[in-house]
C-alpha cells in the first residue's frame, strides 16, 4: 500500500495543489482568474489577523502612534513580557483560570457535540411520532433574538440552583439549536443501507450511532466543534459566575486588558492570545476534516 502511494507521488509530483478528482477540464485562464480573485479578496479578509499579530509586536510608542499604522516597524516581545507580569498578580493563581477554561470551554464543546449528535441521529434517520414538531422547534428557535430570552434563562438557572456553578454555563450551552440542526442535515445524507447492514449484524442503535454514523459525519462534528468552541470561548461567564475561583481565563485576560493606558501593551498581547487559541483549534479541526475524507472511501 505504502509503496504504491510512493509511486503515485513520484509519478505526479505536480498534482499537490489542486485535487482533480473530476474528469472535467479546468482551463488555465479560468484558474488564473480564480487565483487573482482569491488573492485580492484574501488580502482584505486576512486584515484582522495581520493587525492582531502586528499590534501584539508593537512597542508602546507605536501603539499610541497617530495616525495608526497597520505594520509594525520595530517588533519586540515586550507586550508578552508585560502580560506575563500581569498574569502573576491576578486574584487567584492564573493556573486556576486556565483549569476553569478547560472545564467550561472543553466541557461545553465536547458535551454539546455529543448530545446534539445523539439527538440528531433519530431525527435524521428514525421514524417516530413527534419527529417533525421537535425538529421544526429547533430550527425556529434559532430565529428568536437571544437578548430577550436572557432574563427568563437566568431565572430558570437560579430556580435550578445551578447559579454560580460550572453547570450554569455548560448546561445552557449544551442545548444550542445550531448544533442539532447542523448534525441532522449531515446525517440525513448518509445512505440508509450503511446503517441497515450494521443492524442486520445485530448492532444496537447506540452502536450504530457511535461506530457507523459518527465516523461518517466527521466533517460535520469537527465543524460543529469549531462553532461551539468559539462561542464557549467568547463566553466570559460574567452573568452566572460570581466566585473568582470559577471564572475562566478569558475573563481574567479581559480584566488585564481593561487595565487602561498603563497596560496598553499587555492589552495587545491579550488580544493576540484571545484570537490565537480559537485559530489554533480551528486549524486542528480543519486539517482533520480533510484527512478523514481522503483516507476513507466511504459511501456506497
Amino acid at each position, binding site marked *: 500500500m505504502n509503496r504504491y502511494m510512493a509511486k503515485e507521488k513520484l509519478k505526479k509530483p505536480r498534482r*499537490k*495543489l489542486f*485535487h482533480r478528482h*473530476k474528469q*472535467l477540464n*479546468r482551463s488555465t485562464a479560468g484558474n488564473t482568474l*480564480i487565483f487573482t480573485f482569491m488573492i485580492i*479578496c*484574501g488580502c482584505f*479578509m486576512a*486584515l*484582522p*489577523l495581520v*493587525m*492582531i499579530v502586528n499590534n501584539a509586536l508593537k512597542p508602546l510608542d507605536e501603539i499610541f502612534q497617530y*495616525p495608526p499604522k497597520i505594520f509594525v516597524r520595530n517588533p519586540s516581545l515586550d507586550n508578552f513580557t508585560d502580560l506575563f507580569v500581569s498574569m502573576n498578580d491576578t486574584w487567584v493563581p492564573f493556573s486556576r483560570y486556565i483549569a476553569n477554561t478547560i472545564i467550561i470551554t472543553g466541557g461545553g464543546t465536547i458535551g454539546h457535540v455529543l448530545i*446534539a449528535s*445523539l*439527538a440528531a*441521529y433519530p431525527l435524521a434517520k428514525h*421514524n*417516530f*411520532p413527534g419527529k417533525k414538531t*421537535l425538529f421544526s422547534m429547533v430550527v*425556529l428557535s434559532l*430565529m*428568536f*433574538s437571544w*437578548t*430577550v430570552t436572557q*432574563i*427568563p*434563562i437566568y431565572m*430558570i438557572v437560579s430556580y435550578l440552583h445551578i447559579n454560580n456553578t460550572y453547570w450554569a454555563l455548560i448546561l445552557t450551552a*449544551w*442545548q444550542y439549536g*445550531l448544533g*442539532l*440542526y447542523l448534525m441532522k*442535515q*449531515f446525517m*440525513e*445524507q448518509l445512505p440508509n443501507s450503511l446503517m441497515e447492514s450494521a443492524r442486520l449484524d445485530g448492532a444496537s*442503535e*447506540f452502536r450504530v*450511532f457511535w461506530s457507523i454514523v459518527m465516523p461518517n459525519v466527521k*466533517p*460535520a462534528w469537527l*465543524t460543529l466543534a469549531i*462553532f461551539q468552541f468559539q462561542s464557549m470561548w*467568547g463566553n466570559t461567564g460574567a452573568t452566572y459566575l460570581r466566585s473568582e475561583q470559577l471564572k475562566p481565563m478569558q475573563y481574567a485576560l479581559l480584566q488585564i486588558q481593561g487595565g487602561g493606558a498603563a497596560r496598553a501593551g499587555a492589552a495587545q498581547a491579550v488580544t493576540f492570545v484571545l*484570537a490565537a487559541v*480559537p*485559530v489554533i483549534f*480551528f*486549524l486542528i479541526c*480543519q*486539517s482533520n*476534516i*480533510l484527512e478523514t475524507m481522503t483516507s476513507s472511501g466511504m459511501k456506497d
Partner: protein
Amino acid sequence: MDNLEKAKHEWTLKKRIYRARYSYIMLAPYFILFFLFTILPVLASIVLSFTYFNMLEAPQFIGWDNYVKLFLQDDIFLIALKNTLLFAVITGPISYLMCLLFAWIINEFKGKVRAFLTLIFYAPSICGQAYLVWSLILSSDRYGYLNGFLIRWGIIDEPILWFQTEAYVLPCLMIVQLWLSLGTGFLSFIAGLQTVDKSLYEAAAMDGVKNRWQELWYVTLPAMKPQLMFGAVMQITNSFAVSDVSIQLAGNPSVNYAGATIVTHLLDYGTYRFEMGYASAIATVLFLLMVVSNKLVQRLLRRVGE
C-alpha cells in the same frame, strides 16, 4: 365504531411510541435541556411581550398595546424595519452566494493550503477585530485609508464623514456586513462539499456534463441540499439580526437613525431603557419576519438542480 377507530389509533400510536423508545432515549438529554433553556424562555418572552415590564416591578398585562405602539407610534421602529429589510434583501442573498462561491473554490485546493485559505476567509468571523479594521479604513479624517486614497487620486478634496453622513451609513455598513459574511454557512458548505460522493462527478462527466458550472448545478448543489438549507437559515438569522456592526461603527443611536436595525432598536429598549415587555414585542415581530422569509427561501431552494 367511531370509538373503535379511535381506540385503534391510540393503540397504534402507543405501539409506535413504544417501538421508537430508543429514539426517545437518544433524544432525551438534548431535548430536556432544550425545553428548559430555549422553549420555556422563548414562551416566557412571548408572554412578556403582552406586558409592561421594567425589570423591577412585576410585569403588568397590557394586551396588544406594545404591538400597537410599535407599528403606529414608533417612527424609529419603522426606520429600523426598513433598514433591516434592506439588509435582508441585499446583503442576505449576496452573502449566501459568496459563502457558496468561496467554499466551492477553496474545495479545489488540498491539504495545508486548503486549511490555510479557509482560515484566511473565515478570519473576520474568528477574530472579532472587524470594527477595528474598518474604523481604520473608514475613519472620518484624512488619515482614514479610504479618505486618504480618494484625496490622493483627486476624487474628493475634503475627507468624507463616512459614519456621520446619513447617505453613507447604510452602504458602508452593508459592505462591512458582506465582508463579515463568510461565517457559519461558509464552514458548513466547506464541510458539505467534502461529503459529496466523488463517484457522482465521474458519472456526470460520462452523462455529458460539460463545464464546471453545469457540474455545480446538476451534481454538487443537489448533493449538498441539506447544507444549503442550513446555510440559508443561518443567513436569515444573520442578516435580519445585524446589530453589532451598526452599533460599533455607526453608534446607537446613529445619525438620524440611519444605521438603526430592528435588533439595535431592541437592544436600545432592552438594555438601556429596561422596557423588557416592549423589547419582547420587537423580538416577536422579528421572529415572525424570519419565519416567513425562511418559508420563502426554503421553497426557492427546493428548485435547486432542476
